[in-house]
């Protein structure tokens, strides 16, 4: 990005009241971005399910408010031309923005904010598009072997210049997608959201002056830096702690893929090292993890676990150091396929939670349903009209320090389910049942949430795709809590036959009258189920969320029999002995050995290394990060 006058951040004090007023105004602007998009977007994924993320940055591209880490400085470093007021930049290429977005479905929009002819910040937002072209509706083929097999990539391009739409570019993009009207509406909603933020930032500058605004942005970043420094000192141990977990398979029959994290502290700096994670996969489950994004995840996690009142932003980034070996599942080399990265993305939080739990187990949660399960259904109806439904499903929230995990709720914030009446009004489908699965939540002092069971009756011939995980490994329980149940998908054909579908599959033909039984995983339990108050176990049985059998086998509760319960619990305690810190279910070898018998699916096999993508060793990666830190420390800020 050349020839742009970037505003200098003045070295002035802002009085604390003004600081808080501007903080409030920025927070409001960020919520207004959401509100504008929700009301104008067309696709159910954004509109009903809220798969979108906003932010506002300072002149250097550091997020001051928002929900995701910044990426702008990295992305604009190589942008070939100047940006001007009224410009809007669009990209969907994870490889062109350092993984800020991690699959081509996410459309990322950037709006530079100018004031008095200087660049004073950016507003930015990305949202999940229903379709981005490519071989399959949804643009998430489970069998893709490179990103070329997924969909069109848009490098950072201007779609508005000085406020005027660049129609050639917009039309070229929309010419490649299956639902151009929907993409256009969603895109314009995102642009409108970013423009709203721009307007609000202008108002703040007019009211308080540009210098005050810029100094406030810095002060807000500093505030978070200081708060986070304390959290790190209190909660990250000096001696390294590790935890590992798995993504079950890559959609091509390989797996499971290990993700391993080691955490340690040096002074008030924390190190997060992914060495030991498996090499990148051939299938599209690679997750191109942006380091800034991961720092944001860590920050959010620490803040939520330990002090939810703190405003989080990029201010604490210099305190965190992230090591991800190049060529690994979390930093794949181009052109690795990335479409189905949601499994590794979610597993990352399981691993992060598990690692931090080793130091402060009382504060952390078990593992949840562990991904964003998708169901896609498309075809041509009897009138010859193309239909295409994509639905994100939810599952069991883990048992938590504050209480039970919710049954069938979204792990992602603010996502919502699609109303059955909406589905039936617009798509050739009937939902025969939508409920949570009794006993699927892991037992615990605080129970894991139950997974979801949804019965789709297809009313037209078409094709379906499924994206899920945790069909092989278990959502683990913590501190004596037991694991949740695994996911499964069953297709009941109209001819009476029944087949178990893989957790990740595409192009499954269905006929009118076929029924898909879609079951997601439960959440793991938190702490010892034998300590759970009897009346709460009995209430769950009353509600049908836990069966009498499970009440007895996992909680030691004989419904309505207090003395029997006491006796049973005593015997179970004696037999069991000490509780496990983590209960991941049976050992992996056993899970693989019993896979076919238990799931009627073939177990995944260990992948051959990809010759074109050799992985950096852990030592090399650590050295690279330390050298980079030193360079940055020696440069003037």
């Amino acid at each position, binding site marked *: 990005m050349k020839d742009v006058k970037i505003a200098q951040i003045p070295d002035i004090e802002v009085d604390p009241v003004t600081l808080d007023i501007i903080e409030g105004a920025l927070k409001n602007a960020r919520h207004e971005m959401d509100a504008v998009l929700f009301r104008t977007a*067309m696709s159910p994924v954004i509109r009903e399910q809220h798969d979108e993320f906003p932010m506002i940055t300072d002149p250097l591209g550091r997020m001051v408010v928002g929900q995701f880490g910044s990426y702008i400085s990295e992305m604009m470093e190589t942008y070939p031309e100047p940006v001007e007021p009224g410009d809007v930049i669009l990209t969907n290429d994870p490889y062109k923005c350092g993984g800020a977005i991690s699959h081509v479905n996410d459309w990322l929009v950037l709006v530079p904010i100018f004031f008095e002819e200087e660049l004073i910040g950016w507003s930015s937002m990305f949202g999940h598009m229903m379709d981005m072209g490519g071989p399959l509706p949804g643009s998430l083929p489970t069998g893709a072997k490179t990103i070329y097999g997924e969909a069109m990539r848009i490098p950072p391009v201007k779609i508005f210049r000085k406020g005027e739409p660049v129609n050639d570019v917009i039309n070229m993009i929309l010419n490649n997608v299956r639902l151009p009207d929907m993409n256009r509406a969603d895109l314009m909603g995102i642009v409108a959201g970013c423009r709203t933020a721009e307007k609000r930032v202008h108002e703040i500058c007019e009211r308080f002056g540009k210098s005050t605004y810029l100094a406030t942005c810095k002060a807000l970043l500093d505030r978070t830096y200081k708060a986070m420094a304390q959290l790190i000192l209190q909660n990250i141990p000096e001696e390294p702690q590790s935890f590992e977990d798995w993504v079950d398979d890559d959609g091509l029959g390989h797996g499971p893929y290990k993700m391993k994290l080691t955490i340690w502290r040096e002074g008030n700096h924390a190190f997060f090292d992914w060495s030991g994670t498996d090499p990148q996969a051939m299938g599209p489950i690679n997750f191109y993890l942006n380091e800034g994004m991961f720092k944001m995840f860590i920050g959010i996690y620490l803040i939520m676990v330990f002090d939810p009142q703190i*405003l989080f932003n990029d201010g604490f980034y210099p305190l965190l150091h992230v090591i991800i070996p190049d060529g690994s599942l979390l930093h794949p080399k181009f052109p690795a396929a990335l479409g189905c990265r949601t499994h590794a993305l979610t597993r990352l939080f399981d691993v992060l939670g598990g690692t931090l739990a080793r130091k402060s187990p009382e504060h952390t949660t078990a593992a949840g349903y562990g991904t964003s399960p998708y169901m896609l259904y498309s075809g041509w109806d009897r009138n010859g009209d193309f239909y295409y439904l994509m639905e994100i499903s939810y599952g069991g929230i883990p048992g938590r320090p504050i209480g039970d995990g919710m049954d*069938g709720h979204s792990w992602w914030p603010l996502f919502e389910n699609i109303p059955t009446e909406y589905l039936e009004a617009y798509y050739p489908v009937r939902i025969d*049942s*939508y*409920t949570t699965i009794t006993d699927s939540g892991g037992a615990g002092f605080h129970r894991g949430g139950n997974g979801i069971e949804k019965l789709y009756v297809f009313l037209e011939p078409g094709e379906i795709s499924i994206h899920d995980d945790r069909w092989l490994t278990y959502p683990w329980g913590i501190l004596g809590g037991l694991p949740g149940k695994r996911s499964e998908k069953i297709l009941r054909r109209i001819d009476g036959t029944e087949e178990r579908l893989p957790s990740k599959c595409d192009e499954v033909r269905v006929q009118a009258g076929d029924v898909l039984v879609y079951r997601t995983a439960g959440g793991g339990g938190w702490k010892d189920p034998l300590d759970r108050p009897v009346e709460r176990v009995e209430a769950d049985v009353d*509600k049908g969320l836990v069966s009498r059998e499970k009440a007895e086998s996992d909680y030691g509760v004989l419904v309505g029999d207090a003395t029997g319960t006491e006796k049973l619990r005593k015997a179970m305690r004696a037999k069991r002995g000490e509780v496990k810190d983590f209960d991941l279910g049976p050992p992996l070898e056993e899970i693989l050995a019993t896979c076919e018998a238990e799931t009627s699916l073939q177990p995944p096999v260990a992948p051959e290394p990809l010759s074109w993508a050799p992985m950096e060793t852990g030592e090399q990666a650590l050295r690279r990060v330390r050298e980079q830190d030193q360079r940055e420390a020696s440069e003037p800020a």
Partner: protein
Amino acid sequence: MAYRLGVDVGGTFTDLMLAHDKTEEVFRVKTPSTPADPSEGVLIGVRRILKESGVSAAELDYVMHGTTVATNAVLEAKGARVGLITTKGFGQILHLARSQTPGPLAGWMIMIKPDPPAALEDTREADERMDAKGNVVDALNEKQVQALIEDLIESGVESLTVSLINSYANPAHERRIKELLTESHPDFPVTISSDVLPEFREYERTLTACMNSYVRPKVAGYIKNLESSLEDLGVSCPVNILRSDAGLMSLSLTQEKPVYGILSGPAGGVAGAIAVATRAGFDDILTFDMGGTSTDVALCENGRPTIARETELGHFRVKVPSVNVHSVGAGGGSIAHVPEITKALRVGPESAGADPGPACYGKGGDAPTVTDANVVVGHLPPSLIGGEMQLDVEAAKTAVAKIGEALGLDVHQAAQGILDIVNENMAGALRLVSVQKGYDPRDFALIAFGGAGPMHANAVAAIMGSFPVLVPPGPGLLCAEGDLVADFREEFAQTYIRTIDRAEAEEVVSTLRALGEDARGWLEREGIAADRQSVDYSVDMRYYRQGYEIPVTVSIEDLEKNGLELLAERFNEIHEQYYGYRMPAECEMVNLRAVGVGRVAHPQRPEAEQIGDADASAAIIDEHKVYFEGDWLPTQIYDRAKLQTGNKIEGPAVIAEYDSTTVVLDGYSAEVDQYLNILINPNRPNRPNS
């Protein structure tokens, strides 16, 4: 027989206003509320106002009543035990809700899930199914349903809801279940979802219907008490209840659909503010009702409130038409604090409540509240009018000084900081209902009421550019006035999902006509005179498959003349106003609606007879100093009761009355109009950006 009585029950006071239809007689009484049985307080008030006015109970034409019985039942989780019958496969509809967890990322860790209005163990699934077009997929299994009904009633539920999938498209099964229940249990309260909210989206409809069942026995009990006590007093005229959309409904409808009155309280405030403002000549207003623990704001255009299709109550979003009031959890009792880890100045959401209250009340509270900050800077004089309460200035200073220490500010700067933050929060709320909807707040007057509204209104208006600020006399409670001027209102709607190009204008017109007939029939049954009846029509519209609808008002005549394109054009205009652009996409209708309105005569308010001059010095009762941007300015304190029409007051000034205090800032001046409203304007025109 020519009097109308407005009665509004608030948290602290019950407010009554008695007006003659033709003459300009108005009487007003305020008595303490009786939360255990609010009808007691009402009765005391009615007895008093009749005695003081010399009007007999037989002379009353109408009683209009705003009540928070339903609201409180929800907020205090003290409603009925509700049984729910839903479609097979959907028994966990309320348990699953919309599956939402709060933001930001990992917000699920700290989410507390509220208990739904109907418990899972009180929910049963009926063997039946409709499809989205209203065709029967599985016939209703009446035998099975009868067993469910018996089972639920035997288990002890007090109120029943029936909400079936796709009942918005065909309510036959819901209606049949209601019949079955009524046959076997004639008096058992039952709510069917297609009656309460005949719109699609099953969770919202079920929740709203269950909320109705949840508050129904409480409201019915209250109404029974009220009716019999009023009868004992000799009141024989109809009693009507204020709905959340500021319309009136009869007692019998209230007993059936109490959920429509769930926000009766704030609706009364807004209706009252509109009445006061239009009389003073202001049709476009922002209402600003700031109380002890919360503040309600609303935007009203052309003398009418904007109506939202849903409202938030406690943890739930209930889909009933409501005055579009935005509520913020901050008021005079909100506590300021400085969190250790961030050193930020925060105001609220914790509140000192009524007990112990702000530090300055001297009742043992030591937390620094917004009220204490007002005392420290001198906006609130140490002795309140009437001499009932002496404020403890030192206690307020000690409390606020703690904030100063934490921030490195002196006590006055800290107090000013607390006020700046809270005023900014208020402006944020006002921005939400104005700027974010495409309105320019500078085109609106700000109507300030509630105990703390008039104290903050000038500062908030300065941020928004909304002048004049209008402070009516007795601004502590405007609701009874709102009750008095409310019109009868009831909606008749039908879901009709069709894009403009796939629909026939004739079909739309005939459906609207049929809904209009329903509305007329209702107005007749309510006994509204023909010349006071009207029916308004609207269509909820959106771009094809968008998630949110915008109501577009239209007349049958225009629709017949111009066809459905007119709807699309109006929708596009509104969309552009709200969101700044229109789309080349298809426009889609979602709900057709007729609203029956029965207008009531508005009481005349007397103009003040005595026209005073600009000199207000006769009303000065004291002088003290007020802190303003680092300086102490000499400030007159006025007694509002002594102000006369035409009086002018230069800021800074403090105007005190029995239930509120008005602050006029330096650089602004106030004038008293012919209705004794205080109008505050800037001395120099200011049009800040908003």
